[in-house]
């Protein structure tokens, strides 16, 4: 029996738990992963969006969407299963 895990199996195991998504460009999104498809379009609950303030590029805007969202897989770069986002990352703790 093979113990290799396909990338999308890893994401499937993350369904129901928090996930941190780095988008192409400067946006990051966190939320509870509800589902996804072959294009890695993602359905997220209680999503929070972190983006640069259009008026002041040194400020990060945190926007709680308080709703279910469908995220376009086109712009997804990196998925971090089990992480609640930038504030939860190892870099912010060190």
């Amino acid at each position, binding site marked *: 029996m093979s113990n290799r895990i396909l990338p999308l199996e890893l994401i499937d195991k993350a369904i*129901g738990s928090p996930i941190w998504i780095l988008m192409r*460009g400067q946006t990051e999104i966190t939320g509870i992963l509800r589902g*996804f*498809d072959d294009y890695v379009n993602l*359905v997220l609950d209680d999503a929070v969006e972190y983006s640069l303030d259009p008026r002041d590029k040194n400020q990060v805007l945190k926007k709680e969407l308080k709703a279910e969202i469908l995220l376009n897989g086109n*712009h997804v770069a990196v998925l971090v299963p089990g992480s609640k986002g930038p504030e939860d990352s190892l870099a912010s703790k060190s």
Partner: protein
Amino acid sequence: MSSESKDASTEEAPTNAEHKRSPADFLKAVLGRPVNVRLNTGTDYKGVLACLDGYMNIAMEQTEEYVDGQLKSKYGDCFIRGNNVLYISSQKR
């Protein structure tokens, strides 16, 4: 798709089955409801989702356009080409 393969796929995921909500399920649930569509540029479109397709091309009604959070204009009907869409967000119930 054969009915056999469909059975296999429903059997294989009993662990997450009660939580699972695929993008297709989401789109079915959100049709005809008020939504917020965010584009790559950061512009928001709020309105009633009339219809959409696999490219995430979107037709909306009673649309309000927000640029940097400021209401810029309103459209009775509008079409958004799918490549611009970052996310579609629903308001829960």
